[in-house]
């Protein structure tokens, strides 16, 4: 029976090739999009899975409440892990510190010659860290390998890179930062791409403590690079542990600070999704965006299903006779439903196969967009296969059930006499579905237009400084390197094409920001923190910053002169900027005097408002030399800079970026959003309009007789096309009215995440309306024109 159904299904699909093609095209594109979205979401949700005890692992988060602000960091004060281990014995099995850092690793061969010099990110970790998070150890174990100072554990990939073969690595030694020799004591398996812990070089935490940094005992300094992980005791609850935190905070923190400290525990599985806190891997994907994608996927599928339902119910009439005959022959309604569902299933399975091909084709584009390796391997991830099966069943049911009910419900007597007509109820359902479909399409068009406009606004907005053709070249900041700063700058300045250079801690806009309390004009501590930047006397010239009162920094190696920005003075209630000149600012336990005011510039992404900023000189804090280049000679100049850099600082590893690239990195998420919106809006428009074409084809066929009668009554082609198009244009117009308020809610909410944003005006809405109406008009007219010029006589022959 099933085989026969399948055969008949196949013949029917073949008979209506046009509709079948439209159905398969729409469904396969919709399904391909869904599969892409699914494998992406699956990949994102797979982050940090498969750790033992994952439900008991937490990261300690630090928070500060200031009078006008609250912010959090994934970092903790460096003495915190030890204190917590001591004070939370009841609640926690393990507490471990891990410190992210980076440096130059050198490997010498037997003869003592330097064989490899490479700059790598490293992590200092306590042995307990590996008992909290279960990594796979290929050689050694955390207890032994990381309990002594000057020991290092490598990932197998890193060990292969440094020693050729990781099996030979253990026992050998590497040099780190030209300072210490580290003995390789263990090998762990390379962490997968979907991990928030990209550990490659793990140095024992005792090595870090041995370097005797002052901040390692300071409760007042927090860097987001020093994290602390805890393993909750079995049976203990994190709420209980949290209750002990206030006591812990009072015990260790000094009470006189302006901001109030707090801590909380973040679940391991939240780390990948929390964009505010970040992680070592710098890969975050807010759950919100995953939900957004899932909704788009559902919309796509819905649109494709609506196409199917519309076409199927429209065609249903022509199957009336078959239904009648079958019923007369004794078919049960149930059997007819099964038969029609078989047809839908056939189409869906074909669509899935086509969809898989499309997925495979689109995958490289998706991978380059997300810069991640996303797998579409059913063998690796059987869940994808399960998803596809569910998808097929869901689509078959969603799309096939209603038409099957309609068709199987025909009364045999009427059906045989061909007295079945598309009833009014069916038509109005179709109309509602078309309106829903187009409302979705129009919302996406509006969304796309707004996202694209905001993107171009961000690209074009003047930031208050000139980011073009500025290279940011890393410089080491140890005392040995500092002595060569002068030479390096002098030589770079001589390169043709270099316009100006400046040592600084960070570019005007940077994702590395330091906030400090300060005293202005000898008064008590400020109620807000200032963003501090350091740079030499050429900082303003190199970045094109504008001084609007006083003058810029003069040559100095330590804090002496201070330049503040407008926001700083506004927050201090200084109206006349010249009043501030000469006033003192005490910051980081050093005092300087304001000599100039710089015009406000955006110091972070446009999501954030401008911070109050203090700029001064401090040779020891420089990490970068910014080089303003003549845009015509960037390439040769960069090569020359690298050459000079390597001659002046041969012990170190050269690294550079461009200011423009840094800034566009801020908007990576928006760029991805924009690209996704463009693609999916395109797909949904396409699906909707082929559906529309199918529907108008059907309507035109059904009204052939009417068209013919009207023709002999003297209707012109234009009048007929107008008549056929009218209801479609009306439907799309209604869809516009439905879509506008919804789209407004969505885009207004999205824009609210930007401090600097475009004004939302009527144009994207009007434009979406024009686009949708024009495309509808074209789609529908193509078909209705054809209907209007067909041969009249064929339609008027006797039945």
């Amino acid at each position, binding site marked *: 029976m099933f085989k026969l159904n399948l055969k008949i299904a196949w013949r029917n699909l073949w008979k209506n090739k046009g509709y079948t093609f439209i159905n398969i095209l729409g469904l396969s594109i919709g399904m391909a999009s869904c599969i892409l979205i699914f494998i992406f979401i699956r990949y994102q949700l797979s982050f940090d899975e498969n750790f033992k005890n994952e439900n008991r692992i937490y990261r300690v988060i630090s928070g500060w409440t200031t009078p006008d602000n609250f912010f959090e960091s994934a970092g903790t004060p460096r003495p915190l892990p030890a204190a917590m281990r001591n004070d939370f014995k009841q609640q926690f099995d393990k507490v471990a510190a891990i410190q992210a850092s980076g440096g130059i690793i050198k490997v010498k061969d037997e003869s003592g010659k330097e064989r490899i010099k490479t700059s790598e990110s490293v992590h200092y970790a306590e042995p307990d860290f590996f008992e909290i998070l279960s990594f796979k150890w290929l050689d050694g174990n955390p207890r032994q390998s990381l309990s002594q100072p000057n020991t290092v554990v490598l990932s197998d990939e890193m060990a292969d890179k440094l020693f050729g073969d990781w099996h030979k690595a253990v026992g050998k030694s590497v040099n780190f930062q030209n300072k210490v020799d580290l003995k390789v004591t263990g090998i762990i398996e390379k962490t997968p791409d979907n991990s928030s812990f990209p550990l490659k070089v793990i140095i024992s935490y005792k090595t870090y403590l041995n370097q005797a940094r002052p901040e390692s005992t300071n409760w007042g300094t927090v860097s987001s690079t020093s994290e602390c992980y805890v393993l909750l005791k079995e049976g203990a609850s994190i709420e209980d542990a949290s209750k002990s935190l206030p006591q812990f905070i009072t015990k260790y923190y000094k009470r006189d600070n302006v901001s109030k400290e707090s801590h909380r525990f973040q679940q391991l599985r939240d780390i990948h999704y929390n964009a505010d806190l970040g992680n070592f891997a710098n890969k975050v994907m807010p759950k919100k965006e995953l939900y957004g994608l899932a909704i788009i996927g559902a919309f796509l599928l819905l649109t494709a299903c609506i196409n199917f339902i519309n076409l199927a119910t429209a065609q249903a009439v022509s199957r009336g006779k078959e239904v009648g005959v079958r019923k007369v022959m004794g078919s049960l309604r149930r059997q007819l439903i099964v038969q029609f569902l078989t047809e839908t299933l056939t189409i869906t399975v074909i669509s899935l196969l086509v969809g898989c091909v499309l997925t495979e084709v689109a995958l490289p584009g998706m991978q380059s967009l997300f810069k991640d390796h996303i797998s579409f391997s059913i063998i690796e991830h059987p869940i994808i296969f399960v998803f596809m099966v569910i998808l097929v069943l869901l689509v078959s049911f969603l799309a096939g059930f209603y038409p099957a009910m309609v068709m199987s419900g025909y009364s045999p007597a009427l059906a045989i006499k061909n007295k079945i*007509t598309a009833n009014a109820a069916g038509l109005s359902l179709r109309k509602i579905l078309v309106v829903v479909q187009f409302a979705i399409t129009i919302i996406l068009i509006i969304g796309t237009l707004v996202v694209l406009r905001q993107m171009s606004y961000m690209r074009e907005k003047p930031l208050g400084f000139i980011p073009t053709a500025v290279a940011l070249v890393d410089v080491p900041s140890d005392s040995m390197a500092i002595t060569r700063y002068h030479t390096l700058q002098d030589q770079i300045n001589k390169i043709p094409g270099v316009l100006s250079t400046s040592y600084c801690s960070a570019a005007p806009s940077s994702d590395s920001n330091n906030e400090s309390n300060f005293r202005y004009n000898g008064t008590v501590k400020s109620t807000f923190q200032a963003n501090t930047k350091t740079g030499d006397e050429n900082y303003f010239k190199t970045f094109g910053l504008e001084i609007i009162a006083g003058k810029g920094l003069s040559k100095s190696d330590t804090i002496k002169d201070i330049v503040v920005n407008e926001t700083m003075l506004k927050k201090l209630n200084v109206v006349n900027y010249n009043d501030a000149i000469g006033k003192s600012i005490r910051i980081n336990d050093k005092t300087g005097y304001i000599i100039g005011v710089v015009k406000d510039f955006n110091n972070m992404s446009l999501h954030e408002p401008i911070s109050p900023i203090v700029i001064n000189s401090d040779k020891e804090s420089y990490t970068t030399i910014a080089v303003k280049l003549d845009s015509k000679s960037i390439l040769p100049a960069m090569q020359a800079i690298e050459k000079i850099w390597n001659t002046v600082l041969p012990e170190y590893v050269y690294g550079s970026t461009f200011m423009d690239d840094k800034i566009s990195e801020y908007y990576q998420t928006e760029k991805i959003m924009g690209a996704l919106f463009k693609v999916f809006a395109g797909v949904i428009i396409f699906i909707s309009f082929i559906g529309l074409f199918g529907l108008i084809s059907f309507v035109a066929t059904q009204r052939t*007789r*009417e068209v*013919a*009668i*009207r*023709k*002999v*009554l*003297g*209707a*012109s*082609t234009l*009048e007929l096309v107008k008549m056929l198009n009218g209801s479609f244009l009306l439907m799309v117009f209604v869809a516009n009215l439905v879509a506008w308020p919804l789209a407004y809610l969505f885009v207004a909410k999205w824009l609210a995440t930007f401090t600097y944003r475009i004004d939302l005006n009527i144009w994207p809405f009007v434009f979406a309306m024009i686009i949708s109406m024009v495309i509808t008009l074209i789609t529908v007219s193509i078909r209705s024109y054809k209907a209007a010029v067909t041969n*009249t*006589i064929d339609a*008027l022959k*006797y*039945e």
Partner: protein
Amino acid sequence: MIQLNNIEKYYANKGIKNYVLRLVTTTIKQGEFVSIMGPSGAGKSTLLNIIGMLEEPTYGSYEFLGEDVTSLNERKRIELYRNHIGFVFQAYHLIDEMTVYENIEAPLLYKKVGSSERASRIADLLDRFNIVAKKDLFPNQLSGGQQQLVGIARALAAQPSIILADEPTGNLQSAQAEEIMTLFKKLNQEDGITIIQVTHSEKNAQYGNRILHIADGVVKEDVAILS
């Protein structure tokens, strides 16, 4: 009024010409009531369709009101439909979604007749055919004869000079058929409207004043009826 010269119509099928009409030459004058008769498949309907410009002859020339319309562009043809030709079909071909009133109004809308003029003409037709009470009904609520009356009213609405009727009574009972034929005769005699009908029935043909007998695509006989 209508001049057909050597009209031929054939369908080529695998190189073989299947003739439907062969060398039909005839003239129909203003005010005539012509019946085209013949066995099934003789080419009656095709001839009527050619006269109604619904089909084009393969060969031959056709003059309508002194103008060669053998291959007429669409705009001119629509112009003729709007002003000179009314069609009546065996299957009535009313528009199902429109009421009686709206069906009759349709050709006037295409002819761009003003609204008050439209209303008076439709009222006149409804009155004349005794279907005033039915004006708000839909076609499927009427009997066949009534539907055909509406069909004729619709054909007359645009005040054509010629009515082309393809077996107008083919679907009707004899009483209703008689009524329709009497109406045609009246229209022909009182209003001077030229009528060309295709019919199987010798009886119906007697209402007219001329009969064209067609067999195998050829005009066999052209008989005038003296009443």
